[in-house]
């Protein structure tokens, strides 16, 4: 009898402790949810909260007419500048160095909750992705509309090139026709995608999308601008699509080695000595656009994307969907990235034949000896911006 009572007591306490833990988690979870209004709720609640905040504290955010320097200085002093890190931070480091501010930043999550709940005042956004989430009020958006402003890295002169196509030097040397065919078909896909972004967004959505269809369509339109405008704001002519512009690439390299120091001294030495010819080659692009290539040496190829399936990579999906790869004898598999998947490592180890990354990441990988080669530059300008809220 006594034993049974003991068992019952133990059971009761266990149940109670579980209840306490669960209820504890429950209450804290709700408090955090109110702190960081998430998802579709935000669109409506953001308006009311910002309205009350503007009356109580007018100086919490940034002045509507504040200069870039003022915004950066205030955010830096409060230590509330955000970036994702992992190779996406170089432009931000360059911008902060340019204004003589300390180059530290907070780790920004892959949603914009940190920006929404004010733990980050100056957040990194891609024009085609997070900026849309912040401004628009479709499902998943935060609906800030005109209540936010952005800093453009291109205008600040510290813009660096972004999404490209690369492979290893060994692969390019051994399979020149495969590389040319891949570029040729991909460019055809990108041209189609930019001609009709709506249709391209639908194609991407069909192949597995990480975001909603409305956001996908927004993204396609923004990506089009990055592909068809160069780093100085001039239009890129149709026959120069994907061409590696030496001036823009030199700017990317110069900014990178001026503002970023690699801890590995031998890699840092290699970085300082590096020239454009060490990591980019336009001859494959030239061969691809002139149609001057034979049958591919390797027909089954894989491209490793930098991120999840989304309109950021619409050109490849359109080329795949319309059979442009097949027309040139290529059987292409698109491997999505995401999180901590290193696209440079995937290509280096041979898990993928091609990859898309940012030249800065490729340069840093090459400096430590990966031997990668950029063969085309899809995005001709930087899509990175810094977003901040303005006082109402």
């Amino acid at each position, binding site marked *: 009898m006594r034993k049974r009572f003991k068992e019952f007591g133990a059971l009761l*306490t266990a149940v109670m402790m579980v209840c306490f833990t669960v209820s504890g988690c429950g209450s804290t979870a709700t408090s955090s949810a109110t702190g960081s209004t998430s998802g579709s709720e935000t669109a409506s609640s953001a308006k009311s909260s910002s309205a009350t905040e503007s009356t109580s504290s007018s100086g919490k955010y940034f002045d509507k007419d504040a200069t870039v320097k003022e915004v950066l200085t205030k955010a830096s002093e409060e230590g509330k500048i955000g970036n994702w890190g992992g*190779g996406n931070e170089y432009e931000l480091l360059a911008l902060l160095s340019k204004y003589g501010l300390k180059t530290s930043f907070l780790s920004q999550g892959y949603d914009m909750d940190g920006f929404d*709940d004010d733990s980050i005042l100056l957040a990194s956004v891609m024009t085609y992705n997070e900026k849309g989430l912040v401004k628009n009020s479709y499902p998943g958006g935060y609906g800030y509309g005109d209540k936010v402003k952005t800093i453009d890295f291109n205008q600040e002169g510290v813009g660096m090139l972004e999404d490209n196509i690369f492979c290893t030097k060994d692969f390019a040397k051994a399979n020149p026709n495969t590389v040319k065919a891949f570029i040729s078909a991909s460019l055809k896909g990108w041209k189609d995608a930019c001609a009709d972004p709506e249709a391209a967004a639908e194609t991407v959505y069909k192949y597995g999308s990480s975001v909603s269809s409305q956001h996908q369509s927004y993204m396609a339109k923004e990506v089009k601008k990055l592909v068809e405008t160069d780093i100085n704001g001039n239009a890129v002519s149709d026959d120069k699509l994907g061409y590696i512009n030496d001036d823009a690439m030199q700017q990317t390299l110069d900014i990178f080695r001026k503002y970023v120091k690699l*801890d590995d001294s031998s890699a840092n030495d290699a970085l300082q000595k590096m020239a454009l010819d060490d990591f980019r080659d336009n001859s494959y692009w030239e061969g691809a656009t002139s149609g001057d290539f034979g049958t591919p040496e390797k027909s089954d190829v894989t491209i490793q994307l930098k991120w999840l399936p989304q309109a950021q990579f619409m050109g490849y999906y359109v080329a795949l969907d319309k059979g442009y790869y097949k027309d040139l004898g290529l059987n292409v598999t698109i491997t999505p990235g995401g999180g*901590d998947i290193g696209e440079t490592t995937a290509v280096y180890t041979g898990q993928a034949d091609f990859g898309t990354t940012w030249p800065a990441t490729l340069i840093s990988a090459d400096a430590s000896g990966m031997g990668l080669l950029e063969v085309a530059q899809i995005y001709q300008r930087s899509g990175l911006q810094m977003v901040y809220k303005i006082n109402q």
Partner: protein
Amino acid sequence: MKTKKINKNMVTNILYPVIFGAIILILCQTQIMHKILGTDVFTLPLPSRIIEIISENIPKIMVNVKATLIVSVGGLIIGSLLGYLLAIIATVFPKGGAGGLSVAAAFNAIPIVVIAPIFNNLTKGISSDASFRSMIAKTLVVTVFCMASMSINAYRGLNELPPFSVDLLKSYAAGNFTIFKKLRLPNSIPYIFIALRVTVPGCIISGVVCEYFAEYVIGVGRQIRENIVTAQYATAWAYITVACIMGIIMYIILLIAENVLLKGRKS
């Protein structure tokens, strides 16, 4: 006789691990290891290069080591104290204690990768200073890990007593507090060290892992992640080595403390 025993201990405790480590190092440096694993000097850099990078970046590394140590050691101390307290409570209330500790054991099974982001969100309201609240979030994760392990082991130490010893003390008219002080507390000391042997290396590991998810960019674990993502493998390995050294030094300190405190006891 006594010296002979010490020598034997030294051989098994120190010499064998050192020889094993030296063999691994030699295999790496001579690139035999690279052939066995089918890798190259880029992915697995030579030990000489790793040491070179460490020696060149000592100030930067120390900043990160300090950040990781504050989190790991802080979590270890708080977690161990709380865990022991929990064990005492469970001993004082035996009716529910054992069952309650099963829940603590369940906490031990939650992966760090799961609780780290949760604690990040929960601590957002604590302070407007990101470095501070990020440190608190990381320390909490280590605390939970250490607390669970300590409470289970300490509970065993407080309750798995020599047969009839409680009856004996009761026959001397000893109260519960006296039994606790004279019998349970000394009996639990070796069990504390059993727990610490798990939690001391574990606190470094959990500290390093939860830095991956932390809001504020600092710490050895964060550097490992950043350098691997940006394909700086040699630097990443330098930080991995630093993390290993931290764990080993902490473990050696524990072994010395154990030797001193448990002198004359059979371990």
